[in-house]
């Protein structure tokens, strides 16, 4: 963990009202996750207890405290996608990558996460790879997307 980097973000958000939320985003954007080792430093600088920081981070699905794969694949599990058989997409992806939700492939290339709505409901089923959404996905489309990344 690069303490200076964390310190830099803390300086930016320390005096901002409600700054913990953007601070945690900044750390996760930089490192890919929020290492628990950062808690004591954040605690000291933001005048919060370590327990409060743990409580905050663990509340939000978006924040992670473990390293993830280089690419994060989010599969929409919400109703609109269910209506277009997203279940088969879930099963296919888990099987293809050999991992379950919240896990990372051995080569650390992919992590798989469930998501509840990507706002792409007009073109269900949808998945998101990093910051890009893909609509009306099927097995062939998934094969192609994964092959392109590999």
């Amino acid at each position, binding site marked *: 963990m690069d303490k200076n980097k964390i310190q830099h973000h803390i300086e930016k958000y320390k005096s901002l009202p409600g700054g913990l939320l953007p601070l945690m985003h900044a750390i996760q954007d930089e490192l890919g996750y929020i290492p628990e080792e950062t808690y004591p430093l954040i605690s000291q600088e933001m005048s919060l207890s370590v327990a409060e920081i743990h409580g905050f981070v663990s509340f*939000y699905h978006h924040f992670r405290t473990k390293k993830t794969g280089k690419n994060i694949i989010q599969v929409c599990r919400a109703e609109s996608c269910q209506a277009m058989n997203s279940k088969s997409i879930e099963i296919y992806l888990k099987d293809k990558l050999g991992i379950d939700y919240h896990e990372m492939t051995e080569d650390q290339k992919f992590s798989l996460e469930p998501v509840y709505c990507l706002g792409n409901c007009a073109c269900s089923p949808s998945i998101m790879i990093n910051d890009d959404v893909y609509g009306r996905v099927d097995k062939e489309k998934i094969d192609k997307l994964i092959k392109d990344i590999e």
Partner: protein
Amino acid sequence: MTIKIYVPIDSTAQSLGANEVAIAIELEAQKRNLEIELVRNGSRGLFWLEPLVEVLHNGDRVAYGPINEGDVKSLFDSKFYEGGKHDKYLGKTDEIVWLKNQERLTFARVGITDPLSLDDYLDHQGFEGLKKAINLEPQNIVDEVKDSGLRGRGGAAFPTGIKWQTVLDTESTQKYIVCNADEGDSGTYSDRMIMENDPFVLIEGMIIAGLAVNADHGYIYLRSEYPHALDVLNQAIKIVEDNNYLGKNILNSNKNFTLEVRRAAGAYICGEETSLLESLEGKRGLVRYKPPLPAIEGLFGKPTVVNNVISLATIPIILSKGAQYYADFGVGRSKGTLPIQLAGNLKQTGLIEKAFGITLRELLYDFGGGSATGKKIKAVQVGGPLGAFISEENFDIELDYEAYSKLNAVVGHGGIVAFDEDVNMAEMARYSFEFCAIESCGKCTPCRIGSTRGMEVIDKIVAKDEQPKNVALLENLCDTMVNGSLCAMGGMTPFPVMSALKYFPNDFGVESKPSET
């Protein structure tokens, strides 16, 4: 002469390959030595036709869609830039029936303009509402909003003007405008469309809200699943600031309003207004007790207007065209228009802005074209994951807050998700509880524990384990959740559950319909 071509930049259009189409068009034009101007416009919301490519021909926009990369060469071969015929030719965009049969007020510009062109915005009545508001007294602005009959489009349908009045009447040196852009309901995407495709209208609405209640700072609490909207909003705020519509001394009026976007972090509950405020304050998104109302003690304890994206984006047209113009649309106490979003298993999905009063049957069949799979539509969930499932016997009820409320259903944020006959409604009811268990903030017992117990009871009913006793228990549990939960998460999860059981008892293996709850 330069040829003007439009390829949408909306993220759903992108999810279907719009960026690749745009690149292919530029390359093909270069190859043929054609001079083009490529505009990345917003989406018209006809998502079954996306990517929808348009070309300006003799003053009209002509549409082709859905276009994929592979179609681009043949589009040029057929001289689409002169309005030439092609398999994917759709005629003049404005004449497409799906679009023509709408009443687009909030979405008037969406799909037409370049989302980040201020000139385009100004050419299409942009900032006319603000220019009117800036010369009015705060009370006059609030009165205008009250008279329009606008009700919160996020789902709760509380009259927007009354909320504003409370904030205006509460004395404080600091007040806030908070835009709830945590659009978490499945089947909804109208907030996203506004933010990506016409961000200036939301900003304009927020500035007017600030003028109306004497607030000088606003926050847009944006869900983290919308990275494209984040980027567009930040760019739009910068453009508006640089042109003196936002910041200090707006349009030389001595009035100030500043605005920032805060990214949410993937908690559905933060769409609930008090949970959202906690999150904005940098805390766990635990729901607050009410009272005090956020309008009196909201963000950082200050009087705060919390409005949904669509409510705020509708303010400019109410101000520019007048309250009466808006109130003339709609039925009963549901005045104005609702941006309806067709989703799930339908042939023709997309955004339909219509006056209240349209029926589900018209939406599903006239607009939606029936199910995508060609099978019978069995159930429709209206209003997101906390909305009831509607069965065919109620497809003819007019979309209206009060009529839906009589059905124990909600219009909500206007999301409509259709399911064909392959759906098992007991599984959907179980999923409603599962979702509630995943997303509950945990503050109140009925929601935190009731959701998990609910899944177990449904499993027992389906397994025919002491079925009559467990059906009664489920009804009892739902009653406790409806009446004992702190907010809509626990309080409305029973809506989809009980509607599934009531209209589709066979899916639960239950022979007779349960009693009314």
